[in-house]
């Protein structure tokens, strides 16, 4: 990974963002703006943002919004859009992701996920929320995908926000270049650091990568001044077993620095529709949320090692 040497005030540097949310109340303290960067080194099967995985623009299509008007069929110069009994089907071999189909779609049934946004565009939007951030003790959260995959946008944004006194929070998978991570840590107030599971082999199976770099990075980060909240997705029969939870709790308890806060995020099926829009298969029966009772038991496991874990963000 290349560490950027761009001047901090280059407000025209840009990268791929797939969503920006205002009144985000679950991504750190206060009321926030959350910027979702596109592209992720992990591909967790439970991810509720499946469109965040690919670092390129993707086409998303909602059958239920489509009125079959064929505007996209007419607009496509590659003849990649075809109207079928199942709605619009895109011939991936012909599609060049030019986005013309999305531009003409009256219902926005077809949308392009991922837009190249510049620092100044994002700062303009952030400034609209500034007074609400100030009022609520909020700020900006950089999420994704993996924000650290986009240093050329992330770093200038962190610096711009810093110079305006805006609280900065980085929501990360933890898988990133060490030097970059330290550089970002110096420019942020808070990390939301995801910790999926302790068993490296399982981690590889479920997320596509093993967890050794992630764990190392968390230990390294814990040695810096930045605040860290550790976020753990709770997925039934995937990572909610006693062994994983005990190991996780012990690992966190052994981290250097102050006691860390833990957020437990029970799995939900919100991604089902997104998978469908991306044309991906999704089997909801594989994944589930631990029972309420189990969630409270897990809270207790953390309590036993002196860690305050709360359910929800």
């Amino acid at each position: 990974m290349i560490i950027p040497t761009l001047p901090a005030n280059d407000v025209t540097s840009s990268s791929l963002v797939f969503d920006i949310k205002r009144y985000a109340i679950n991504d750190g303290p206060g009321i926030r703006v959350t910027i979702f960067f596109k592209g992720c080194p992990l591909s967790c099967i439970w991810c509720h943002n499946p469109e965040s995985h690919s670092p390129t623009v993707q086409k998303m299509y909602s059958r239920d919004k489509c009125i079959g008007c064929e505007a996209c069929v007419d607009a496509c110069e590659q003849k990649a859009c075809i109207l079928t009994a199942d709605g619009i089907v895109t011939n991936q071999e012909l599609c060049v992701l030019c986005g013309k189909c999305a531009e003409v779609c009256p219902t926005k049934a077809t949308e392009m996920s991922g837009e190249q946004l510049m620092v100044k565009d994002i700062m303009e939007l952030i400034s609209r929320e500034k007074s609400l951030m100030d009022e609520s003790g909020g700020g900006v959260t950089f999420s994704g995908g993996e924000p650290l995959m986009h240093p050329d946008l992330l770093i200038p944004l962190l610096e711009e926000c810093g110079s305006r006194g805006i609280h900065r929070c980085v929501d990360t998978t933890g898988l990133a270049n060490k030097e970059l991570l330290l550089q970002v840590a110096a420019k942020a107030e808070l990390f939301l650091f995801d910790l999926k599971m302790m068993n490296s082999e399982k981690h590889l199976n479920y997320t596509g990568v093993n967890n050794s770099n992630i764990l190392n990075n968390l230990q390294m980060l814990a040695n810096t001044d930045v605040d860290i909240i550790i976020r753990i997705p709770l997925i039934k029969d995937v990572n909610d077993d006693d062994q994983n939870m005990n190991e996780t709790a012990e690992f966190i308890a052994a981290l250097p620095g102050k006691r860390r806060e833990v957020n437990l995020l029970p799995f939900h099926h919100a991604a089902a529709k997104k998978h469908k829009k991306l044309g991906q298969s999704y089997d909801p029966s594989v994944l589930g949320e631990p029972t309420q009772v189990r969630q409270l038991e897990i809270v207790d496991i953390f309590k036993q090692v002196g860690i305050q874990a709360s359910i929800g963000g």
Partner: protein
Amino acid sequence: MVKLKSIKELNGHLETNQSPERPASAEGNFYHDRGLDAIGPGMNPRIQRLRKLSFKAEPSLSIERALHQTAFYREHSGKHSTPVFRALTFLDHCKKKTLYLGDDELIVGERGPFPKAVPTFPELTCHSVEDFHVLNTRHQQRYTISQADIDTYEKEVIPYWKGRTQRERIFNHVPETWRQAYEAGLFTEFMEQRAPGHTALDGKIYTKGMLDFKHDIQTHIDSLDFLNDPDAMDKFEQLKAMDISCDAVILFANRHADLAEEKALVESNEQRKDELHKIAQVCRRVPAHAPQSFWEALQMYWFVHLGTITELNGWDAMNPGHFDQHLTPFYEKEIAEGSLTREKAKELLCCSWIKVNNQTAPPKVGITAKESGTYNDFTNINIGGLTRDGHDGVSEVSYIMLEVIEDLHLLQPGTSVHISQKTPDEFLHSAAKVIRQGHGYPSVFNPETYIQEMVGMGKSLRDAREGGCSGCIEVGAFGKEAFLLTGYLNVPKILEVTLNNGVDPLTGKMAGIQTGDPESFDSYESLYGAFLKQLNYIVDQKIRVSNYIDTMFAKYAPAPFLSVLIDDCISKGKDYYNGGPRYNTNYIQCTGLATVTDSLSTIKTHVFEKHSLSMKELLNAVSKNFRGEEKLRQTIVNWTPFFGNDDDRADHIAVEVYGDLLKAIDGKPNTKGDVFHLNMLSTTCHIYFGKVLGATPNGRLAGKSISDGTSPSHGCDINGPSAVISSLTKLDHTRSGGTLLNQRFLPSLLKRDADIKKLGSLIRNYFKRGGHHIQFNVVDTATLRAAQKNPEDYKDLLVRMAGYSDYFNDMNADLQQEVIDRTENESF
């Protein structure tokens, strides 16, 4: 016969109230100690029984007042000056009216012979036999009446009033151009069925009794200069009428004292016997004298409230104003003395709350049930805010009131919390927790903004601070102002008429003026210019008749008792309807700002900027109600900047329209030496206005409701509440007499205490940036759908709509659908 619910069902209902949806109640002491006789919410068995009685009582019609009025008019009409005659009819009714003093009651008095029995006001509008049959049998907002009463009314009341009612007087003299616009649904007229009201009290009745007012009146009578003041005789008659009306209310209270004593004589329960003696003692003291205790203060207000809503059927019933501030001195004094406990104070407040709930709104005549269907009579209690001297007005009484709201969750009274920069966060967060319960109350107001509004309209700073909202979101100087809502303006309909060169396309009749063939407009500006011409014409039609109606009320239906209560009616010797109050504002309420903004934005974007659509194509699609034009409609809905998304392209149009509404209305003279001002309230009128409106260029289909207040169009605010408040605060709220913002929240957004704080921040931020009012509808769609299917299981379900609360199941299907359709801010 109403089938009584089994204990099991009732307990089921109680359990619902203790579910995680109502954590604050579970934390509090409201629900413990309930055995088999548990009957619903309430702090103790007395309040539970009173609440249940109030909740279960069927609204009915009482013909008693009409019979008294008619007999008195027959015998005495023409013998006195109008004000004195009106005061004497009031006195006559107070003498003869059937009293009600129910078991368990501590605060006494009803407008009708029993709870939720509503009198009629034939001198203003006389119900027909057909009206009664409709009211008696319709499915929603039903008012029961017996056939015997209908027969009596037909024989005794209806014949006398034929041609004599205020409504007939008005409608026989309106210009044809007004009638065309009115019938097209371009505006409504508030005063065609009910008297001007919209008032709230300051604190004077807590330091003065009716005998003190009579003394003031006499002083002013004594100082009348009959030689040099040509109006002295009119003033004398007016003051005499006020004096009689004070006697009427004292007499009414004394009759209650007599009744309480009679009941005490035969009461076997010693505790109740003592209570009845106490009631008698309180009713002998107030309203004749100033109250000396918390109990007396509440009973004082209640007799005054009943007096004003019996004298006439003024809009918004009556409002106590800053009730917590008025009661605080009594509370603090008695708590210090040890003559009152917090628990007792709360019980008395509960009794007062239930009394308000017992006063169902009087039903209209010529029932169409289209315009606004609700039992709510719009009494609104202001809590918190600032004092007259600019200090924080929150006290322990304010917190008790929040508990009462949460505890009783009744339809009435409406409540509002007033969050100034001086209001402690603790109070804001306590109020937000009540909002979280999803019963709709309280709505939230910004004193800093409404004080600026009032000062901008010429009120003194201190009078403005003492003001607040009455009814829905309209503001006025309490105890010193007649701030009359005169009717709603259907702003999107004005655009529709513009796009049809003055014709109402629904009827093909001329409704406005010719402002040019829309296809000939070569720019957005020329279209907008035509819209402005149409707007000014319609506003002038409206004002002309509003002023006429005001003079008719001054002449034929003065309100001497209300005049006693509002400064400076006594010192001026003038009636409330005739310029007696210190301030006399007329408001026109403009509805559908977002609908008209989004429609103009559509035309601007697609016809004049992108040129992707011709005016002809657009108007053709609109005229067909977008039939066969779904592709076009979807393009509009999804690809046009709409209001409420912090998109300057749309928001700047809203700002321009708002500015032009101000220009059209603000400063036009009324009949009382004061002027008209702009208001942005809609109540439920956006539903009626939608019904008389064809499809609109923003893709809204014919008949669907238009946007409410200054809220975004339903479902069009897709960037969350912070974007909504950003859009809203581009408007200068301080130049209106009130804006309205409804925000629907699902309970999941307000689960944790941290969420409550964030809601508090959202409110603070909106207010810091100049917002006037915000209210939250915290419900989930599944609940609402279930409520539509099984109304019996959801009788308690209150929802927040456009400035007031209603029970979901008392709303008509359109209102219900609107609540469901409104944007759900489930996740942003």
